[in-house]
């Protein structure tokens, strides 16, 4: 009989709507809603089950992957098992020392040097000082930033930062490792080394829980997968089987989100989001879009009161970099509009975004004179789509490697005849 590392029984997590996104209450808000709302629990807000009655078991030494579209509850599950938040119902029995990597570089301080951050980050991840001292050289070597060890990390390039941060994390040796999509960082070469490290984790008999959007990665690392959808566990089985179901099933995709219940849809008394999707040039919902095609982000929302609002999108790439924010600049949004359904699409030109996964945050805001925009409705990472490169003339040119950067525009380059320009190289007649 194998020992269980994790035994999850009917675990559920309830959130108040809005809590996950705009949690900042001030006393003033409570006073405005009447003093009776001061007692939590009496808040006149709707709730949502981020996880709903999920049960599964993980044997010691098993490597388990978790997939599902955005908002399915993957991250909530990892946060519960990492003891960051508590379940509302149900329980999980965890046997063994837990180490969780929900982010690369948690607690890194920009003012501190690389050396100092190795110790700080190691301690935060749960390593003992003696353990860090022992593995220090190995960590430094893995990261490849030896020369910059005594430089504050704020002067690091983002690539160096990620490499150092991952190196510390990779040397954590818990019995149960919980990883949330942190591998999708760094350059291709480094990613390969990270994957190797992850594979050796699995082979060394440690229990690993791994969340990713990347199907090739997760299929390679995890023999068994869980598929979550809207907080429920819909499938638990061999990887190929679950991935097949996920990609071709009726669960929809990350490129489309709908909020069918008008009362539970994200938003406030002014506006509520009803749907959002990623479309290609022909208007078809699409998960995967070629760099050489324009990309549309369609937002549908209900305006509940006469108000001047505007749709807003933020695009974040797989390294967490904000690629850009954009608002609908159509002048119709300058005036208060009548209540009703509005549907608008933002068109992102072809040859702008780089290859990789893009997460889209959609929101509806209104401008307050001289203040920050008022957020009526917002869903963080509501949509995810992949930008891929198939063929044709692109910004890649003849270069075959990965192109760094959040964007990769196709630029017009002009060249000046060298003779017309002043040159330092050839100046005869001067002593």
């Amino acid at each position, binding site marked *: 009989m194998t020992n269980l590392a994790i035994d999850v029984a009917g675990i559920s997590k309830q959130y108040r709507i809005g809590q996950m996104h705009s*949690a*900042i209450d001030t*006393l*003033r808000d409570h006073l405005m809603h009447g003093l009776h709302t001061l007692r939590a629990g009496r808040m006149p807000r709707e709730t949502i089950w981020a996880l709903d009655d999920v049960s599964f078991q993980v044997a010691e030494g098993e490597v388990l992957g978790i997939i599902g579209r955005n908002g399915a509850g993957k991250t909530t599950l990892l946060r519960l*098992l*990492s003891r960051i938040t508590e379940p*509302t119902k149900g329980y*999980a029995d965890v046997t063994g020392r837990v180490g969780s990597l929900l982010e690369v570089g*948690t607690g890194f301080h920009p003012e501190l040097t690389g050396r100092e951050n190795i110790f700080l980050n190691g301690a*935060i991840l749960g390593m003992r000082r003696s353990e860090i001292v022992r593995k220090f050289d190995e960590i430094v070597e893995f990261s490849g930033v030896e020369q910059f060890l005594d430089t504050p990390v704020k002067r690091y390039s983002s690539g160096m930062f990620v490499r150092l941060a991952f190196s510390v994390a990779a040397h954590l040796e818990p019995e149960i490792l919980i990883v949330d999509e942190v591998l999708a960082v760094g350059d291709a070469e480094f990613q390969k080394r990270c994957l190797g490290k992850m594979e050796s984790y699995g082979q060394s008999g440690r229990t690993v829980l791994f969340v990713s959007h990347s199907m090739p990665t997760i299929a390679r690392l995890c023999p068994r997968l869980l598929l979550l959808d809207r907080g429920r566990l819909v499938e638990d089985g061999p990887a190929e089987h679950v991935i097949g179901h996920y990609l071709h099933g009726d669960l929809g995709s990350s490129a489309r989100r709908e909020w069918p219940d008008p009362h539970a849809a994200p938003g406030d008394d002014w506006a509520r989001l009803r749907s959002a999707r990623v479309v290609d040039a022909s208007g078809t919902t699409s998960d995967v879009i070629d760099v050489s095609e324009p990309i549309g982000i369609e937002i549908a929302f209900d305006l509940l009161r006469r108000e001047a609002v505007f749709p807003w999108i933020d695009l974040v790439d797989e390294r967490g970099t904000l690629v850009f924010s954009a608002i609908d600049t159509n002048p119709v949004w300058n005036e208060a509009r009548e209540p009703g359904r509005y549907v608008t699409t933002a068109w992102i030109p072809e040859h702008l975004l780089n290859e990789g996964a893009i997460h889209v945050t959609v929101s509806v805001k209104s401008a307050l004179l001289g203040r920050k925009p008022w957020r009526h409705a917002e869903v963080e990472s509501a949509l995810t789509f992949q930008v891929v490169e198939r063929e044709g003339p692109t910004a890649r040119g003849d270069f075959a490697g990965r192109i760094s950067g959040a964007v990769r525009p196709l630029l017009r380059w002009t060249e000046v005849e060298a003779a017309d320009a002043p040159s330092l190289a050839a100046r005869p007649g001067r002593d």
Partner: protein
Amino acid sequence: MSVADVFDRRAPEAPRTIRLERTRRRLPLTTRDLREILAYHELLFFLVWRDVKVKYKQTALGAAWAILVPFTQMVVFTLVFNRGLHVKSEYHVPYPLFIFSAMLPWTYFTACLSASSTSIVGNQNLITKVFFPRLIIPLAAVVAPVLDFLLAFTVLIGMFVYYGRAPHWHLVVIPAFLGMALLTAFGVGLWLSALNVRYRDVPYVVPYLTMVWFFVTPIIYGVTALRPRTQELIALNPMAGVIDGFRWAVLGRGLPHYHVYALSFGIALAVMLSGLWYFRRVERYFADLI
């Protein structure tokens, strides 16, 4: 089957099972919680070390600020209150020495308040990504300023030399009163840091709170200048006991006001315990609310 055993990285035995579920807690702090905090003492050390390291990075004067601030305050307060408004010191002690012996624990206390009140929200990247006993964060915020206190203490030694005074044996109780200041700051810090998670008004309240607190604490005046009734009333302020006791220890004059110390200590303990109770009650929502 304790939580501490599994997360205690020194536990040598085979791993044990812990159950993660909604807490139904009766006591604010059980021995199991204490053991867990002990197991994380290295993290406490690193957070204090981080705060100390980062504080004076990229400043021209560096740690000299820890000396400069209380010193200039002493000069200004002497000019305004002593020379200008003729406030007297106690037992014919030079006024600069009198005020500086109070500025030391007070500066420490206010530094703790401003650091601890924003500590949980300021460390939200940790709270939402890693598990560790949350109490460590406000605790680190009141330990780190001890270093500034020690630096400023050298000024006091300099002033003793300047005024040609010999230290008194009372000095040995200084750590006790510093400990009482830490206890008070930790208690208030627990309340403010936890409240700040829900109500971001806290950073606006703190300067106002500090200013009012300054005047109801015997800093610019001495406890003996007050009527007996008022002395008892002022001892309800835990910092009154700290400052009066600290001054007695440093200056070595007068009789110790035991009733003031005892009452102040009792209140400080009550503030700390209530803060602990509130903090423990709401900490499980931190990651969801922050």
